[in-house]
């Protein structure tokens, strides 16, 4: 059915586009003004970008959990930010113990591996428990029901960990070997950032291989196409979904340790913002798409660290870094409005969501 443009454009579209253009104008004007003022040296931008890349890598690992689960269940696992929090918040006790005994500095590689494994194991167990207790019985329930369960589970987990480990901040010990930085010309690279980037890339490669190459990965992809048919083809749906949650939990646990290298304090609320940003990344890349999640996460990480200074400083907004979370949310809202399919995704937000 073809209609002329006058009928197709509604007032809704006008408002939405109006807001979009206004935001776009803020970004462009702000960027030009900031660059013109010359307040920041080029090396500052590079430093911020590297910080953004490291952050993006961590977000990518968290985003994997959202994307994989969305692929098989078509639901957003709201409690994933708590899966992410549980790992490092538990492993900090091991890390502190190792630091007290001096083992952390004597055997940094081995201790980091132990901490990493513990964190991954805890996050995985929480993810599996969540799936078994809260999501599996509700798989056929109306859409709103598992969504509310997920929100409830998220709060339950957050405050359970608060009750278990206390509401204070725990400082993460970082091995001495990782505390320095190297200078490459005018660029300064922190070791922790290098480890975070490399770790994230390595982990992403492993996850990508699992999803694309293994039998279990194939089963996951089949289920995301059609659950009933997959079951008829002899795929154990329950087991595959549990495996998906386990995979998401493992990558969240790894992300947690890398995150605490970048921001070495943990507490029970630490999952909320990274979780939301990782979700934004997953949506930006196209939810359900593994490569998209990585791409989206890098973009979000960069925008978050470079954005406030680049866009807002030039407009004369004081302390723009206060608004870095607002930037992430604005991006989220606008992707969902203008391109809910994300960069690499299929069109799901309207039809299936």
């Amino acid at each position, binding site marked *: 059915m073809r209609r002329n443009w006058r009928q197709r454009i509604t007032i809704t579209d006008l408002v939405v586009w109006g807001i979009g253009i206004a935001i776009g104008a803020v970004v462009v004007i702000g960027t030009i003004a900031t660059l013109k003022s010359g307040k920041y040296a080029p090396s500052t931008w590079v430093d911020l970008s590297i910080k953004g890349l490291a952050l993006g890598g961590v977000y990518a690992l968290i985003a994997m959990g959202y994307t994989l689960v969305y692929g098989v269940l078509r639901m*957003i696992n709201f409690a994933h930010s708590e899966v992410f929090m549980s790992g490092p918040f538990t492993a900090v006790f091991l890390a502190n113990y190792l630091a007290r005994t001096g083992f952390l500095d004597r055997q940094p590689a081995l201790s980091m591996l132990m901490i990493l494994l513990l964190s991954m194991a805890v996050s995985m167990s929480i993810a599996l428990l969540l799936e078994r207790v809260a999501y599996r019985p509700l798989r056929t329930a109306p859409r709103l029901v598992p969504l509310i369960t997920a929100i409830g589970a998220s709060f339950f987990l957050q*405050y359970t960990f608060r009750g*278990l480990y206390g509401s204070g901040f725990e400082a993460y010990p970082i091995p001495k070997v990782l505390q320095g930085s190297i200078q490459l010309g005018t660029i300064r690279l922190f070791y922790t950032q290098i480890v975070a980037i490399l770790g994230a890339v390595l982990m992403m490669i492993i996850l990508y291989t699992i999803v694309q190459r293994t039998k279990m990965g194939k089963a996951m992809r089949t289920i995301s196409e059609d659950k009933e048919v997959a079951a008829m083809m002899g795929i154990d749906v329950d087991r595959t979904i549990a495996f998906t949650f386990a995979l998401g939990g493992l990558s969240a646990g790894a992300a947690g340790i890398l995150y605490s290298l970048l921001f070495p304090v943990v507490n029970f609320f630490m999952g909320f913002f990274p979780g939301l940003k990782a979700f934004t990344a997953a949506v930006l890349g196209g939810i359900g798409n593994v490569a998209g999640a990585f791409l989206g996460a890098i973009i979000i990480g960069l925008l978050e660290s470079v954005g406030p200074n680049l866009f807002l400083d030039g407009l004369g907004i004081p302390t723009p870094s206060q608004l870095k979370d607002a930037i992430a949310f604005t991006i989220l809202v606008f992707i969902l409005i203008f391109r809910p399919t994300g960069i690499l995704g299929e069109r799901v937000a309207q039809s299936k*969501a």
Partner: protein
Amino acid sequence: MHTKPVSPWKQALQLGLLGGAVAILLSLVGMVAAFGERYIVSGWFTMGQVLFLAPILFLSYTCVRRISPQPAWILLLCGLLSGLVGSALLVALVIIGQAVNLRAMFINASPELYGLLTFGLEGAAGILALLLVGMVIGLFSAGLFKLPTRLRSAVTLALMMTILIGLLRDLIMTIVAQWVIKADAFPEWLGWAKTAIYFIADFFNKRIFAASGLTPISAVVIFLLICGISFFRDSRKLKIVKREIPKSKQQLRRVITFGGVAILFLILPFVLGIYFAEILDNVGLFILMGLGLNIVVGFAGLLDLGYVAFYAIGAYTMGVLTSPELGFFNLTFWQALPFALLFSVLAGVILGLPVLKMRGDYLAIVTLGFGEIVRLLALSDWLSPWLGGTQGIQLIAQPTIGNFVFNTQAELYYLFLIGIGIVAFVSWRLKDSRLGRSWMALREDEDVAVAMGIDHVTTKLMAFATGALFSGLAGTIFAAKLQSVYPHSMNFLVSINVLSLIIIGGMGSIPGVFVGALVLIAAPDILREFAEYRYLAFGALMVVMMLLRPEGLWPEARRKLELHETEIPPEIVDEESVPGLEPDAAS
């Protein structure tokens, strides 16, 4: 529902382990110790003990129920086993905890906790006591199951009510103490009332309650009393009697009930006293917001997680327009009110427009993002000349009528009462209006609703706008109550509070909002120990509610039907033989 035949012993072992695990979790998050000083029965047992014994009891009861078609001795032994296994896990916790210092990790694994778990006994005696209590509880659950249904529900109810009354000891005593103070000021001719109040206070103080919790004798009496009343009161009979009353009398009865409730609400702050007026205000605030969110989530099915944004916008508009501290407008409360409401509605529409096409999960996230953006903006240095930044806004105008200023908690209570009255009336009328029915149609199936000619743009926008209006109203009264607003009080947790109260009350149900607010908002205020664990409990309640009773405590009729599509009660199918609802068509 198909269940594989599982060996009863395995069942008992599994459920016993689960019960023990839940009990350990409750101990380690600190709930057991927090309630360890709150006696239910003075000198006998505390709420902390109830907390770690209840999961064991519940799960061994579940175990007995699951394996039920078995001989009595197997049931008894299985109950015993599951209780024993549950308490054995707790014993393991105590033994490990005494050997290793768990406190380095679990901050609540204190010696006090172990003392509570072993009933204050030392060493082996304590461990034996714990195991013994576990076994007794297991046996008790099996015995409870074997009772006739009517007696069983009477015992369960009486047990819960006795615990509740014991818990509410401080609340009741504060109210009574405040009556005594009031009675002292009575004039001479009310001497008899004075004596009566003194007598009641004395009776409560000496006979029913001890310094903490119930006295042992009164606990037994209360238990037996409630047990007897609920056993001999056949609720089914009452319903039939009610149906036989003539129409005119029914109407009279309704008017009397309504009048009674209205009078009760009017005198409530006087009966309960100042401290409770504060709690009532809090509850009122959340009822107002709950009624608004109930329209968005309950009626229209749009999950809004950024509901606090409208509340913040209402409160901040009130602040900016009236506060002489900022000195922009210096309006009075009533002059600023329409603007505050207008801005809230506008915000509702502005949020509503872009998210029109989204459903479910995405909508939830976008609204959450919106709420956070509003908070971050209010908090930022950028807007601080207008919104006060982290300092917030002070000196907000109080509402006045003539020379009367709504100042104290009790006076503000009436302001809330008026607001709730209007809002509840509006949402009650909206519910069955054309708009309300369109909302519910959209909630149930958007595509079908649109195909039936419902304009989903206006309908959804109306839902957002109405919800925002009510929330904005709550925000303005909140601002006037505190005479100040802070960005920190506008966080995500407010949205979650409101959401959980309407979910627990029953989505789409107006009385459900009241029930939910009373349970969720008043409970943490009344039981101080509970306040620490409110979000833990809310989260758990949301999950459990969705798993077991998704329609809420006071369900709305249509919603209940929709959620239990697959389990149509037989009488409906028999009476009307609804087409297309055969079991396999519904599944």
